[in-house]
């Protein structure tokens, strides 16, 4: 009997929970237009996981990468939730992400 699989499952639960936290914060302070950056970070984590020799560390990196990609898709809906008053709305001007012109040409993904 091996508990490592359950440990990975619990880690995924924790990282998804952390995802809810950072999505709310990131949308509040930076705005949903920053979505390509957590998505790129998630893809980077997954790419790096291919080159980690240890199966366990590779798995942890993969789970983190997958959850960051999901978080990126959640930012747009979070912005709408804040506008609807379901979450705290930040009225201050949010900083423009680098590459805003290109980001605006792509429709922000959501699940």
């Amino acid at each position: 009997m091996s508990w490592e699989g359950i440990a990975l499952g619990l880690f995924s639960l924790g990282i998804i929970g952390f995802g809810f936290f950072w999505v709310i914060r990131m949308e509040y302070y930076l705005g949903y237009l920053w979505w390509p950056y957590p998505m790129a970070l998630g893809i980077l984590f997954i790419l790096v996981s291919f080159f980690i020799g240890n199966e366990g560390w590779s798995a942890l990196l993969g789970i983190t990468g997958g959850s960051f990609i999901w978080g990126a898709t959640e930012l747009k809906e979070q912005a709408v939730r804040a506008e609807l008053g379901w979450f705290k709305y930040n009225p201050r001007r949010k900083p423009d992400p680098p590459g805003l012109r290109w980001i605006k040409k792509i429709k922000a993904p959501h699940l």
Partner: protein
Amino acid sequence: MLQFAGFWMAMVTFLGIWWGHVGVRWLEAHSPNIWPPIVVLALSGVALNGFSLFAPNLTLAGVSSILGITLMWDALEMYRQQQRVLKKHAPANPDNPRHAAYLAAGKAITEDLLDREPQGTPDVPSAPQRVEFCRATYERREVEA
């Protein structure tokens, strides 16, 4: 040699969350009674976690446990989704007798309020939000001028 464990974990994490969003919404909207799917999801989650204890390798153990834990969470999300429908935060399905009863009682709506692009302004700002929004707009215009 490439290590694929991370890739499979990433796939199952993302697909688990995707199902937790899209699948749970669909299942809740089409189930006349939410308890049978809740029981099935919870038991499937327990079974997958049980399997992960005896899986022949770490990748299979991790994949089955991640899927199992997300399915157990989805069982809870089924109930939370029903509450979202009752709070008018999620659309009701008029073809579902349970939702039809909510609609008849004026407790739910069919419109999906989240299905739109962000506008950049609050829809119904509270009084403090209105004051803060006006102040921030004024400051922004001062800076731009």
